[in-house]
């Protein structure tokens, strides 16, 4: 029996080196990071103040009225959900297709989805007239023995958003477990025992057993497979909240498809912008390579093309083929008081991102980031057009007071934006931004092939 304690050195590196990724959370961050973090934290404080004001004075602080009972609350909600959906969808499809791009973008696409869905999840509660009673949509045994009304699209949405947050979180976390183990081991090697234990607790004692891997992969792909239809369902349910009403411009079978498809460039654009920024600021060129960036920009451009088709189809159906009332409603939406929002949405989500077909534009941070963010902003304009301009033509020619968003609503948007950025910054600081085990795995597989 000989204790062969001294290892024999391996001749060459057999496994892809993911150390640059693992090093990021364990290193010091510069002033820029802290400034960004403070700014986004200030946004969250603003959100807190806005929410406190809202709770104190009521929904009257918004610019909403009858018939515009929904304003920024639903616009922002649908927008954030769209971003979350598209980002999640990308991650899920990449996992299910075992696509090479997954190593590069999955982790932060999932993180962005999670942050967006958290930001979105605030709105269904805050938009209520009495937000503190939001739990009444949950069937719990109350002393008054009244139950939720399960035929409501809002109940679907309650479960939808709950499931969306939880399953997106699960998907992200399951993928994160092995990487947390890597972080644990690296921290331990550096002698940072507290950090190691923290990572260790969240890694749940992952030790890389091939048996564990087998079940882990099964679970990961199962959740991905479950998430795919859930995303479509959740987004559809949100759209159904509009489509099942009797509002002429909303009561359209094509609305769910429109919402799903125009959501895609917003999420993909955001992922593209994040990829470009992470790549540049964290020096991850090796992990998010030019090929990844190119693929991602072309995906965004493709989603944008799909949106263009959806817009064209909407115009064709809405202005030509539908019945008179729906035609008039559509006409009002594209030419009425809020027409600018419609066309801004069309321009920003469906036309400008077409530039990303160009490799040069897609690969340059200076162009990819603004174009990606434009696509995301465009979806916001589109949601504005749907939520506000969609009811400019109601069934009866009743009073149509203007909807003018109030300061409180702008602050709410800013606040959830701050929350989103804060969550992403914390993510970049605390966990590996690229899936390390997938990188290794993919490299090993490509070598084998």
């Amino acid at each position, binding site marked *: *029996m*000989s*204790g*062969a*304690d001294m*290892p*024999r*050195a391996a*001749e060459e590196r*057999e*496994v892809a080196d993911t*150390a640059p990724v693992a090093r990021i959370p364990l290193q010091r961050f510069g002033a820029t990071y802290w400034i960004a973090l403070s700014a986004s934290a200030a946004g969250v404080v603003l959100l807190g103040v806005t929410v406190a004001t809202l709770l104190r004075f009521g929904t009257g602080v918004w610019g909403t009225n009858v018939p515009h009972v929904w304003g920024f609350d639903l616009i922002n909600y649908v927008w954030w959900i769209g971003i979350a959906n598209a980002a999640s969808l990308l991650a899920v499809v990449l996992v299910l297709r075992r696509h090479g791009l997954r190593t590069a973008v999955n982790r932060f696409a999932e993180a962005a989805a999670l942050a967006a869905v958290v930001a979105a999840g605030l709105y269904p509660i805050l938009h209520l007239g009495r937000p503190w009673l939001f739990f009444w949509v949950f*069937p719990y045994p109350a002393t008054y*023995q*009244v*139950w*939720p*009304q*399960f*035929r409501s699209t809002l109940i*679907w949405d309650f*479960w939808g958003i709950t*499931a969306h947050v*939880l*399953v997106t979180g*699960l998907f992200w*976390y399951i993928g994160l477990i*092995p990487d947390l*183990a*890597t972080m*644990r*081991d*690296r921290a331990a090697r550096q002698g940072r025992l507290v950090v190691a234990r923290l990572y260790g*607790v969240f890694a*749940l*004692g*992952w*030790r890389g*057993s*091939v*048996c*564990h*891997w*087998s*079940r*882990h*992969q*099964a*679970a990961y792909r*199962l*959740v991905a497979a*479950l998430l795919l239809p*859930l995303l479509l*369902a*959740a987004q559809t*349910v949100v759209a*159904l909240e509009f489509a099942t009403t009797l509002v002429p411009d909303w009561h359209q079978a094509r609305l769910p498809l429109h919402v799903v498809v125009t959501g895609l460039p917003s999420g993909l654009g955001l992922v593209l912008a994040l990829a470009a920024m992470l790549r540049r600021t964290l020096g991850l060129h090796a992990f998010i390579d030019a090929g990844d960036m190119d693929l991602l920009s072309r995906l965004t451009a493709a989603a944008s093309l799909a949106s263009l088709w959806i817009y064209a189809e909407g115009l064709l159906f809405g202005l030509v083929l539908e019945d008179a009332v729906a035609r008039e409603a559509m006409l009002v939406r594209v030419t009425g008081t809020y027409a600018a929002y419609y066309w801004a949405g069309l321009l920003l989500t469906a036309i400008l991102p077409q530039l990303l077909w160009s490799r040069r534009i897609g690969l340059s941070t200076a162009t990819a980031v603004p174009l990606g963010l434009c696509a995301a902003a465009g979806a916001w304009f589109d949601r504005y057009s749907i939520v506000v301009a969609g009811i400019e033509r109601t069934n009866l020619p009743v009073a149509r007071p203007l909807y003018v968003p109030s300061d409180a609503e702008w602050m709410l948007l800013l606040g959830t934006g701050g929350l989103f950025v804060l969550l992403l910054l914390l993510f970049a600081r605390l966990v590996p931004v690229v899936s390390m*085990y997938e990188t*290794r*795995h993919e490299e090993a597989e490509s070598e084998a092939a």
Partner: protein
Amino acid sequence: MTQPAGMIAEFADAEEMLAALRAARKAGWRRLDAYAPYPVPEAAELLAVRGWPVAAITVAAGLAGAVLQYGTQYYLNVVDYPINVGGRPLHAWPVFLPATYIVAVLWAAIAALVGMLVLNRLPRLHHPVFAAPGFDRASEDRFFLCLFVDEPGFDAAHAEHLLRGFDALRISPVPAA
């Protein structure tokens, strides 16, 4: 020196580790485990571990969630407190389905994580192999095969002998916990 929990061999390469694993299985070794920084399905196959039980748990939980949600909706809106809502029937099954479906997915997804953890006997923060020298690289770039020696007829020397036959970077005993 107390009896170690097992002998562990470190490899730079999955193929080496697989070869050793195959040999150990052939030698009738039953208490053994392999560790890798990424999934190595062949190794799991050799250890006769499949992913489908996770899928089974997931599907079962999803079905249970669906039944529970549909049942809840039916019971509460049709039986316990039936109310005429907008002239729709009490048992308006088409509109009960979306939530049923979504909740089924929620249950299934949670069950996938929980089932995976339970089948893997996780969380387990402390495990003897963690004490093996150089095991920290199992999560980065090394492959390990550990032969446990807590069964009669399988001892450390036997294990070391078996492992010696392969291109291990290092063979060390795993300290007993």
